[in-house]
Structure formats: structure tokens, C-alpha cells
């Protein structure tokens, strides 16, 4: 395989994987007929098309191969930003808004290499205050500031 085709092949594989996963899962639902479509009909059809176009993307990549390299992948940023979002979802009810926002903001701010050890907590504290003002004071979001995990 040519190095140049790698982006097309990877993209195509994503499409094939998702298309196949949806189509196979949908096959366990009632498919029905064109006249009376069951819940499985449309997803199987679209899943099949997704696989088809995914294969086309791969084929075009290998035959024509016009796209470049994948390039740099910011692993640290990916881990921190996604980790921050997931952390928020997991803990906001238990810890309450203030700690959840603070940690989320802190984690994501360190996703940038330009954030210094001193700046991170400052940014996080500022954002926590801003968010409490906007979402709790102004918009009356009904979530506790400090949650049950902290004994509040």
C-alpha cells in the first residue's frame, strides 16, 4: 500500500466499520417489506450504502492516492480534553457544579502546552466563577454547587 493512500484507507475503514455494525445490528430487528417497513429496513439500507461508499473511498485511495499524510496527532490534548468532558459527565451530580467545573477547566487548560502551572488554576478558577454566574445565578440551572459526594 502506498504511504499516500493512508488517509483514504483509514477514513474508508471507519465508514465500513460503522456501516457494517449498524447493518448487522439492524438485521436482528424486524425488517419488513417496502410496503410495511419494519424498524430494521432503513438502517440496513443506509448501513449497506455506508459500507459501499466506504469501500469506494478505500479503492479510490489505493488507485488514485491523492491525499497526504496523517500528520501530527496531539495525544496529550486528546486525552485531556476528552477526559475533561467525560469527567464532567461522571462527576457533576456527585461532586456538584463547582468542583466538577473547576477540574474540567483545569484538565482542559493543560491540554495546551502554552498553559503554565500557575496559569492553569487561575483560568480554571475564573471559568468556574463565570459559569456559576451564568448558569446558576442567571439561568437558574437546578444542580447543587457542592454535591452529595462531598457530604453537602
Amino acid at each position, binding site marked *: 500500500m502506498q504511504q499516500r493512500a493512508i488517509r483514504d484507507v483509514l477514513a474508508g475503514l471507519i465508514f465500513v466499520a460503522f456501516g457494517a455494525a449498524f447493518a448487522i445490528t439492524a438485521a436482528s430487528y424486524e425488517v419488513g417489506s417496502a410496503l410495511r417497513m419494519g*424498524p430494521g429496513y432503513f*438502517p440496513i439500507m443506509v448501513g449497506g450504502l455506508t459500507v459501499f461508499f466506504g469501500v469506494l473511498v478505500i479503492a479510490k485511495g489505493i488507485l488514485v492516492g491523492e491525499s497526504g499524510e496523517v500528520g501530527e496527532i496531539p495525544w496529550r490534548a486528546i486525552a485531556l*480534553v476528552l477526559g475533561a*468532558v467525560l469527567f464532567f459527565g461522571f462527576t457533576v*451530580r456527585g461532586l456538584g457544579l463547582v468542583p466538577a467545573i473547576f477540574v474540567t477547566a483545569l484538565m*482542559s487548560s493543560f491540554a*495546551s502546552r502554552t498553559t503554565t502551572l500557575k496559569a492553569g488554576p487561575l483560568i480554571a478558577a475564573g471559568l468556574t466563577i463565570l459559569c456559576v454566574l451564568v448558569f446558576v445565578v442567571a439561568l437558574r440551572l437546578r444542580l447543587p454547587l457542592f454535591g452529595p459526594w462531598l457530604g453537602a
Partner: protein
Amino acid sequence: MDLLGNLALGLSTALTPENLLWCFVGVLLGTLVGVLPGIGPTATIAMLLPITFSFEPVTALIMLAGIYYGAQYGGSTTAILLNLPGESSSAVTAIDGHEMAKRGRAGPALATAAIGSFVAGTVGTLVLVLFAPPLARTALQFGPPENFSLVVLGLVFSIALARGSAIKALAMVMLGLLFGTVGADLATATPRFTFGIRELFSGINFVSVAVGMFGIAEILRNLENERTRSTVVQAVKGLMLTRADARRIVAPVLRGTALGSVLGVLPGGGHILASFASYSVEKRVSKRPETFGHGAIEGVAGPESANNAAAQTSFIPLLTLGLPAHPVMALMVGAFIIQGITPGPNVIREEPALFWGLIVSMWIGNLFLVMLNLPLIGIWVRMIRIRYNVLFPAIVVFAAIGTLSLALNPFDVYAIAFFGILGYALIKLGCEPAPLLLGFVLGPLLEQHLRRALTISQGDPSVFITRPISLVLLIAAALALLFAVLPSIRRKREVVFQEEE
């Protein structure tokens, strides 16, 4: 006709203190995100959508619309002053606008952009007033086969106008359609792809998809290689146009407005296409094409008018057919649905105050923008100094809280992370995210119309080509697809889009 009565109704809706306030807030926020590189209107509207949940429907839509056209406007300021287009549609403005700024003519360039945008915004709103009602009346007569073909046409257009590979865009649409099927099936209430997780029964929240693909994925893109932005800006002096300048911009503004009004209606990012098209038209008709790229005022006037006119008229397919023209409009569909209104031809009849109020507010918003932009130019320029390492944690936190506040469902927050990483991977592999979002929003509609159409026709698929309107729509879709895939046309398109890089 009672056009005047409708406009009066719109005025009385748009001029309530509450609506005026939120219209102002909307265009202010829009200008801000237009100025700030690294955050676009799609992510902003997705994040703020949950907040508008508690508003009156018309107020919510007025504000969200304001963010959108405000951003078109704000993007031109940084394009001219710093050669940093905050929005992709103002990338063309940067070519000659920044050259003018370098020659000490930043003032006239900004004034031209403001005047052009205002004229275009006004005309675009008028076009909306004149063409939306008859189009909505036509669309009301559509049955399921026509509606199915219409959605197909919309999806195909989103491919034709997307950048990059058309096959990848097609695959993205399909992937979006698939994600749209998650949740209870509309007709039989069978849960699909929920894996027994109750939170998934109501489907994937489109705010999560939009925030993930346009907010988080974009942050990850920007963190690939961090550069410090230069923020050296010379003081802007003398906003007044000379008489000669004024004469030079009249025709480009009018041509740009006309071009933008037409192209804006096309699904799939007509406003970006409009500004590029306008630039090449101006260059072609100019008696001095050699001045383009060296500070030709026509190169600012035309594209700026075009993208603003397109921003207004891209509401036409949304308000009359329920068909979103691009990702921002797809979010507007979501905003309608959150408020319990189905966007489409019925809106104008069942919610006349909302329909006309929204339209009139756009003109008022354009007026605000002229007043905001020129006198406050210094403040906007200072905004660019906001460091990205402060901005992006704010986006992450706002995205998470905003999405959570929609239904207090933590699953919606996990979905942001999922679509963030998926979106990032796909964008990195050369796939545009917009077709996926449109597929996701339109998927349930497509399936519903398909089922109904085939039930009516006793399962005979020829119903789509025997009904004349449906046939015409499908032929148009086929032509658009051909246009998108044909290599010779594609190459020309690549050239047009390359200037954006």
C-alpha cells in the same frame, strides 16, 4: 396582499424590549465569535441552544439567528485588520481587505465591508419577505414522495458544495443518517441501537453531535500545532470613504448582493461559495483586474455583500421547506424542535408572529451591526488578544454544562466526547463534518417520508419518478451529484476553494 400587515406584525414582535435586547445580545455574541479565530457560529449556537430553552420561541430564534449573521459580519473585521479570517466566508475579504489595511486604508475597507453588508442584509431580508410565502404555499402541497425527494436534494447539495472528496462527503451523509436512527423507531417505537441503555431511547442529542464535531474536534485541530498569533494592529483612522471610493463600490455591492441572495438559498454552504464567486466576478468585470490582490476596494465590497446576502437568504429553505441549508441552519431546526415547533411550510401559517418577527429582527440586527461594528472597532481588535489557552477551556466547560442543562442527562455529555474524537479523526482524514450533521438532522425525516410514500404507493418505488414534482427534484439531485463527482468540474472547484487555504 397583506404584506404590510405581516410586516407590521413582525415589527410589533421584533420591537418588544425583550426581543430587541436578545437580538442585540445575539449580534454582539455573533460579532465576538466572528472576530475570534478558533470558534465559529456553529459551535457557539450549539453551546447556547440549551440556554435558550427557557426563552419564548421567537426570542430564542431571534437571538440564535443574530449569532449567525453577526458572525458573518465580525469575521470581516479580523480578515481586514489582521489577515485572519474569523469565518471561512470572509477568507476572500482578507485578500484585498488586508492589502488595503497594509496601505493605511483599513478605515475605508472596514467601512466598505459594513456598508456592503448592510445593503446586502437589507436586500436579503426583502428577498426573504417576497419569496418565502409563495414557496411555503407550494411546499404545503407536497406529499410524502415530494418531501422525500426534497430531503434527498438537500443532502446531495450539501455534498456538492462541501470541500474535498465527494465520495467521502456521501459516506459522511450516510454515517449521519445512521446515527440519526439511534433511539425509538418513530413508527413502531422499537428501540434501535440502544443496547439496553435507557438514556439512548430518545436518540442521540443533536446538540452533542454538533458540539462534538464542531466544537471539540476543532479545539483538537487547533492544539495540533500551537502558534502565537501576532496582534500588532495599527490604529484605524478615517472611516470615511472618498467620493471616488463610493462610486467604485456601488456596482460590486449590488452584484455581490444579487449573487449572494441566489447562492444563499442553495443548501450546503452557499455563503462561502457566494463570496468566492463574487470575488471572481468582480475580478473578471473589472477594468483593472491587475489591482486585485493589491488592495482593490471592489474585492472587499463584492464578497462582503455576497456573504451577508447569502446569510439572510439561507433562511429561506429552512423557513419554507424545513430544509437546513448548512450546519448552522441544522441547529436552527433543532432550536425550532426544542421549542415544540416543526420547521417547514406550516410555520408561516401557524406561527405568523414568529415568522415575521424573526425576519424583521434580522433587518434590525443588521442595523445594530453597523452601529456596533464601526464605532467599537477598537474593542473588537482587542478581543483578538484573548489567548487561545483561555478560550478553549471555556468552550469545553460551556459545551459540557450547556449540553447537560438540556435534559440533565450525563449521557449527552459522554456523547460530546464520542463525537469529538470521531469528528476529529474524520476531519483529519479529509472528511468534512457538515454533511454528517445534516444527515443526522434530516435522517429521521427521510425515513418517515420514505415509509409514508411507499405505504401510499402500495410498496411501489416508482412513485418517486411518476409524480412530476418529485421527479424534477430527483433529477436536480442527480445533476448536482454529477456536478460534484465529475472530475473536470471538480478541478475548477478546487481552484476556487484553494484560495481559502
